[in-house]
């Protein structure tokens, strides 16, 4: 049958707001601290968060002051602790990236521009809570007290790598901190986290699970499995969509129609909140709220953490090919470290001099840790793990076929 043409229009394919060579011009945010009230996390319904899902929870204003119902009223020591963790992560990332360029690491991924996400959110949790991160939340380990030398040994894939050279750099595992093994397939951790939370609930334990997924990976089935299971079983889990706007070169416009992620939790019956992801105080407060809600038995919270991936996706990526070089600087959310620093200065609890001192101290700390770690080898020069480790821990006990293959591999 001949098919009748109705117009010259063709497939509608979205694009990014700005591409390489464009001038990035963002409108300033309409959302201010104090816009949104803080409902009772133990009692409110998903519908009580409709405004929070469509708006943006902020605490730090353009004047660097904290205000509004969501102000978590952290003391200056806590704020300085958060600042220190973020500075540590940024300097650590920069050092690792430099070492990647020299061939000491096979690969690296920085958290640049979104250091606040894992750090503020993990600080807002209890130590028994479970962490199901993506590769962009390694900062949680600093909060949980992981030794930096051990982290670098992993990145160097050397003899002291606690995952035995089996995974690419940044794919950390830290069981002591209840930090699950990072997996490259994006999104899988999101639905797994709900199972962890269901098990905590089954055992009647005071444990909450937190997990993150990128804006791009919300297009995976695992995102929807997670929201649905969390809702159906009322699991004590905190489901974060880190909207850093870019999935490698793919803008968030390809991950969803419309302009929002947070509100997608509402039809699942989940409390849903969008939060300024570069505002340490707002992110801390929203996470604390979600923890309180989960722990009380009132269920999961779906959070859109609005931020910007300031750096490349990974050491293998070149964002100048697909977005304006200064887009990060033009984006209205600012920089999470600068904003917390400026807040501490504004309240008289910090100074530029102290900031410089902090950066110097951490730079030395990272260098010292690196020097210590590299004593155990690096990817380029070895020593690497024993060949036998290819075969161990595939199963609890090595079956005969792996024993034979191991013997062949080690030349026995």
């Amino acid at each position, binding site marked *: 049958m001949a098919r009748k043409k109705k117009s010259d229009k063709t497939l509608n394919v979205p694009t990014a707001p700005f591409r390489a060579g464009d001038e990035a011009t963002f409108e300033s945010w309409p959302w201010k601290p104090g816009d949104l009230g803080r409902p009772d996390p133990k009692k409110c319904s998903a519908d009580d968060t409709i405004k929070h899902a469509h708006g943006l929870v902020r605490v730090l204003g353009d004047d660097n002051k904290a205000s509004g119902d969501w102000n978590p009223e952290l003391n200056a020591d806590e704020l300085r602790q958060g600042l220190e963790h973020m500075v540590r992560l940024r300097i650590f990332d920069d050092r690792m990236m430099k070492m990647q360029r020299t061939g000491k690491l096979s690969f690296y991924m920085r958290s640049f521009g979104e250091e606040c996400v894992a750090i503020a959110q993990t600080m807002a949790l209890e130590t028994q809570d479970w962490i199901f991160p993506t590769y962009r939340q390694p900062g949680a380990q600093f909060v949980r007290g992981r030794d930096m030398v051990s982290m670098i040994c992993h990145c160097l894939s050397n003899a002291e790598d606690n995952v035995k050279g*089996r*995974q690419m750099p940044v794919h950390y595992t830290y069981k002591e901190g209840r930090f699950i*093994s990072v997996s490259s397939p994006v999104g*899988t951790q999101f*639905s*797994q986290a709900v199972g962890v939370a269901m*098990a905590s609930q089954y055992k009647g334990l005071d444990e909450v699970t937190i997990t993150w997924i990128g804006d791009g990976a919300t297009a995976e089935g*695992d995102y929807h499995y997670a929201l649905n*299971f969390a809702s159906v079983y009322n699991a004590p889990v905190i489901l974060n969509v880190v909207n850093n706007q870019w999935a490698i070169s793919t803008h968030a416009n390809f991950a969803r129609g419309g302009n929002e992620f947070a509100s997608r939790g509402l039809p699942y019956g989940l409390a849903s909140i969008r939060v300024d992801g570069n505002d340490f105080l707002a992110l801390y407060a929203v996470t604390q709220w979600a923890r309180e809600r989960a722990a009380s038995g009132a269920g999961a919270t779906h959070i859109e953490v609005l931020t910007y991936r300031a750096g490349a996706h990974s050491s293998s990526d070149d964002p100048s090919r697909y977005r304006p070089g200064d887009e990060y600087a033009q984006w209205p959310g600012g920089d999470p470290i600068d904003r917390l620093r400026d807040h501490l200065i504004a309240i008289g609890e910090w100074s530029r001099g102290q900031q410089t001192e902090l950066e110097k101290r951490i730079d030395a700390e990272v260098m010292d840790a690196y020097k210590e770690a590299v004593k155990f080898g690096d990817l380029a020069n070895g020593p690497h793990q024993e060949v036998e480790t290819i075969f161990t*821990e595939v199963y609890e006990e090595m079956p005969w076929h792996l024993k034979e293959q191991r013997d062949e591999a080690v030349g026995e």
Partner: protein
Amino acid sequence: MPNMNIIQSLNSALDNMLERDEDVIVYGQDVGYFGGVFRTTDGLQEKHGAHRVFDSPLSEGGIMATAFGMGINGLRPVVEIQFADYIFPGYDQIVNELAKVRHRSGGQYWAPVTVRTPAGGGIRGGHHHSQSPESQFTHTPGLKVAYCSTPFNAKGLLISAIECNDPIIFFEPKRCYRGPFYGDPHNVLTWEGHPEAEVPESHYSIPLGEARLAMEGGACTVIAWGAMVHVCEQAIRDSGVSCDLIDLQTLVPWDRDTVVNSVAKTGRCVIVHEAPKTSGFGAEMAASVQERCFYHLENPIQRVTGWDTPFPHSTEWDYMPGPARIAAAIQRTQEG
């Protein structure tokens, strides 16, 4: 000792394990209130509580992901995928997550998940209620794979699977749930009176990785698993050839010693499976047998399998290996 069919023996295994271990929980589509579309979990919710035996959303990916999370957090989930054909939305979670987490975490985390799933043809199920996708899991390091065939080994193997600290895909031959299948679709039997249907009510286990010698003979070795074990039994009788019939029971790790010792004795080998031929598990076994038994083999190894096509509906008896095809293969090994 009571006579049980496979449904009853699997139910008994789950009941024993729910009784013995608080960390065992059972869930999947229609598994809870209703007791499963095949009735395998019948009565278990009522006996053990809705928090331990429960229904899940229609979401194989979500079932597998949550089982992973529960396993990490100390539980021992036993999940049901209603038909093996529907396991694929959960494939990423099985292949990239369950199978790899122990290794990739340096042994810090593991998830002892048992995935029960009815598989195989013979129920007029068409493309999507008939497949036998075991080789899509035997090719994944980190997984164990078992395939039961009788009431007795169904219970013993399932208990071993649940007690095992590795993730395992546990295939159940749905055509044999209520009776052995000898290849004649019109002869619908029950397990009544069958020696393999004498099943203790109490806990027992059959070690993973050990095959079962279902028939003993000297002229040919026939290897099968699932429903094909019974079809092979018929074919061996029809062929008049004295055969060892090896019911593999576990595919990963498989019992190579039993197979190799038998072929060394008989010098002949026929491998039978319902799944398509190309890259089927029979290919792996044939390669291993020729490596180990080259100088014992009197004739080429024969494979009798499903065709390399989608599983058909009205012509399923021309697709599944039947006694005639298998007997002919056994005869071919006796030539020359």
